[in-house]
């Protein structure tokens, strides 16, 4: 029983880390800069495809594998992956090298995808931008599902386990790594909050024309934010793939990786890190609980998974009706502490 | 009670922004009332609040004995109020004739044609453009159409928000002439916002001076004109 709970918590933690990173990226784009990115799934998928494509090739190159298998990487991918796994078991150094290179590549892919979806963001605004990004988000899914060489078509591929060296603690290590990614993003966003950058982003969000008249290059800042957001999504996508040791394009859906983050962020409040954290945790927990108690609900004449959709939709409607800015609302903050500001202004206190 | 419109202690604004503070105003039948004041003092908000296009926080707007603050926006026209808005006062993609028909939306279908003839006899300059698309008209022509459209609903009370703003002196004079004509020929009450005071001084029976959301003067136009201090300070007439 305790073992079951342990696995439950570890998996919860892993998903939580991934989603928190993704949601904070949305907060950077939506909450700070006012870009309604309905194509989060794009950069996430980009990162996931890199995670599905690169590690197995790196693995083949770094460790001893039967070279004849390379003739058909997709057909033989399970055999190759398990052979690489065996070697990685004993060599954390190699595994971590693969991890790092993969993350670098995934970040680069995310940046590229962010850059190209940033192009319409500069010219369009409001709901047209949202629809345009939504359409962008579909593009990689269509390619991945239909073009086998990327990650093996709809059914996907298995990839080597870079956490294999941790043995029994493998899931724990991977979950903690996911959370470390989320923590990094959190700290980064927090430092934006407590710097002139956060102020400028909000100014651009609230009134782009006025910000531009005060010398802010609105188009470039928006593009930079899209690229940064893309990097974060790309990293999250790769980490997720490495955690699940597999990637299937059909599982990288608009629902899971665009709409769900939006629900979490709108619920918690896009103006605050804590809000995003609360939103993320609540929905991940509910999702996990529904999946775990699926069998207890087997008397229902339908798949209990749908309850999750129902619940999310209802909660979102309620939040939008009664608290449109989310559970935790934005607070005006300053780059300097009040004491520092008082000192700068030559006053006793503020 | 000869009062057509009575506004009492009106506090209004938009969402969290408070624009009007304790405004009192009345308008009797057949009277033309001017609301003057500098930009941003809340004149348009006052007219909007009659149509519930602005939020009423407290106070009341009574038209002909009915409390309008409980009425839905689209029902106000039916009570006999025509509104010529400052901007967006015609449907640019519709023809002038369609605009006029739309103006009579609250009338029974059979009366539309009859009313259109009445209105066209009051606003004759519109007749030549009936078939044209409103968006292709010049500023002055469009303003005239908008005036005709606001008359289509058989109003008892006509609200005019800067009917001459942005028009050439000739077009302004033409509009002013039409307004004067309307007042003479019909027993229509009017509430007019105008910056170009001179044009309307001989039409208006009463003036209210609105500054920063408060009425600071009310009286005849002559009185306001005599009060050089008020004229200088708030209207920018040097």
């Amino acid at each position: 029983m305790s073992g079951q709970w342990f696995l439950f918590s570890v998996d919860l933690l892993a998903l939580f880390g991934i989603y928190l990173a993704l949601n904070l990226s949305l907060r950077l784009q939506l909450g700070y800069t006012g870009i309604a990115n309905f194509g989060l799934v794009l950069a996430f998928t980009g990162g996931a495809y890199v995670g599905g494509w690169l590690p197995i090739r790196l693995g083949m190159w770094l460790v001893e594998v039967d070279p004849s298998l390379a003739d058909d990487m997709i057909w033989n991918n399970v055999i190759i992956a398990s052979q690489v796994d065996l070697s990685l078991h004993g060599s954390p150094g190699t595994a971590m090298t693969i991890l790092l290179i993969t993350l670098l590549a995934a970040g680069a892919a995310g940046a590229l995808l962010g850059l190209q979806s940033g192009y319409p963001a500069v010219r369009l605004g409001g709901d047209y931008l949202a629809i345009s990004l939504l359409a962008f988000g579909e593009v990689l899914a269509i390619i991945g599902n239909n073009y086998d060489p990327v990650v093996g078509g709809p059914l996907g591929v298995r990839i080597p386990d870079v956490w294999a060296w941790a043995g029994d603690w493998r899931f724990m290590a991977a979950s903690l790594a996911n959370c470390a990614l989320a923590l990094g993003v959190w700290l980064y966003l927090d430092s934006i909050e407590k710097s002139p950058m956060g102020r400028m982003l909000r100014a651009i969000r609230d009134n782009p024309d006025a910000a531009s008249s005060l010398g802010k290059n609105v188009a470039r800042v928006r593009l930079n934010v899209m690229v940064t957001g893309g990097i974060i999504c790309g990293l999250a996508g790769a980490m997720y793939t490495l955690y699940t040791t597999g990637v299937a394009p059909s599982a990288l859906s608009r629902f899971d990786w665009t709409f769900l983050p939006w629900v979490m962020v709108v619920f918690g409040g896009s103006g605050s890190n804590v809000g995003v954290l609360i939103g993320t945790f609540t929905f991940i927990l509910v999702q996990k609980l529904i999946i775990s108690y699926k069998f207890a609900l087997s008397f229902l004449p339908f798949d209990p998974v749908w309850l999750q959709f129902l619940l999310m939709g209802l909660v979102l409607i309620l939040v939008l009706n009664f608290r449109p800015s989310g559970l935790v609302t934005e607070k005006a903050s300053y780059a300097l502490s009040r004491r520092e500001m008082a000192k700068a202004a030559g006053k006793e206190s503020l | 009670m000869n009062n057509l419109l009575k506004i009492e202690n009106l506090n209004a604004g938009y969402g969290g922004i408070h624009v009007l503070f304790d405004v009192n105003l009345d308008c009797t039948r057949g009277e033309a009332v001017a609301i003057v004041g500098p930009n941003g003092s809340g004149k348009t908000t006052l007219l909007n609040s009659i149509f519930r296009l602005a939020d009423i926080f407290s106070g009341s707007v009574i038209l002909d004995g009915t409390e309008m603050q409980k009425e839905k926006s689209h029902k106000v026209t039916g009570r006999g109020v025509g509104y010529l808005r400052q901007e967006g006062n015609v449907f640019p993609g519709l023809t002038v004739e369609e605009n006029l028909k739309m103006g009579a939306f609250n009338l029974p279908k059979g009366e539309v044609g009859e009313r259109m003839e009445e209105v066209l006899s009051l606003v004759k300059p519109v007749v030549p453009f009936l078939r044209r698309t409103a968006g292709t008209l010049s500023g002055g022509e469009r303003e005239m159409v908008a005036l005709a459209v606001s008359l289509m609903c058989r109003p008892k009370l006509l609200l005019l928000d800067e009917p001459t703003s942005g028009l050439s002196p000739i077009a302004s004079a033409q509009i002013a002439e039409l307004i004067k004509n309307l007042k003479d020929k019909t027993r229509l009450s009017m509430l007019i916002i105008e910056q170009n005071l001179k044009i309307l001084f001989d039409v208006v029976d009463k003036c209210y001076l609105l500054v920063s959301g408060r009425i600071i003067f009310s009286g005849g136009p002559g009185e306001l004109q005599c009060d050089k201090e008020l004229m200088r300070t708030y209207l920018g007439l040097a």
Partner: protein
Amino acid sequence: MHGAMLEVRDVKKSFGGLKAVDGVSISLPRGRITLLIGPNGSGKTTLVNSITGFLRPDSGHVYLEDKEITHWPMHRICKEGMVRSFQLPAPFGGLSVLGNLLVACESACGESLLKCPLKALWKTTEKDNVREAFAMAEAMELTPYWDAVMSETSTGHIKLAEIGRALLAGAKLVILDEPICGVDPVMADEVFSFLIRLRDEQGLTFLVIEHRLDIALKYADYVYVMNQGKLIAQGSVEEVLNDSQVKEVYLGS
């Protein structure tokens, strides 16, 4: 050009068939307060929008200190030394009054996604900015409200904060579009006195669009009058007020 701060030559801008600005040329000498007046819809704001890069003029040229800035984007024009305010309130609603003022201050390192986590890079600049912003709040009599969120502030205070914002952006030429609209008369006089002080002490140049002539005329060095997209008069306050054409169109007499 002869070293004028801003030289505008034959600028035209039309919307559809409407010629909003129809060949206007103006010249702003350094260290002067120039007033631009005219009835509603005469094209003043469109002229300012075409000068400051908010709109693209159809034709004509704009020179800032002898450098051609026609068709430059707004942020680049600001960096070059010309900043403008907007007629309708344009607050950064989610920021406080002080935050609004601070946005205008230059903070190169603090406003980069890469460098902003390193506080040491921007801390000193930020302290200077805070000092300047508080001084500006003081001048605009906004000190009691410095921490209030802009979206919940009254229109008058928003206008004042926006003037302060424009002044803080470090410009040599400041264009104010109806700066005292919605501001009470006493405060409005103080705003203009402050502009005079900035003109005298720092040599700033101002172009002010204003409706409330009673207040604005007292402080103007030079006046341009527009009607129907064209300049109809220019000169000193007396000259303009005695111009028959001005009386005709502006005062309606």
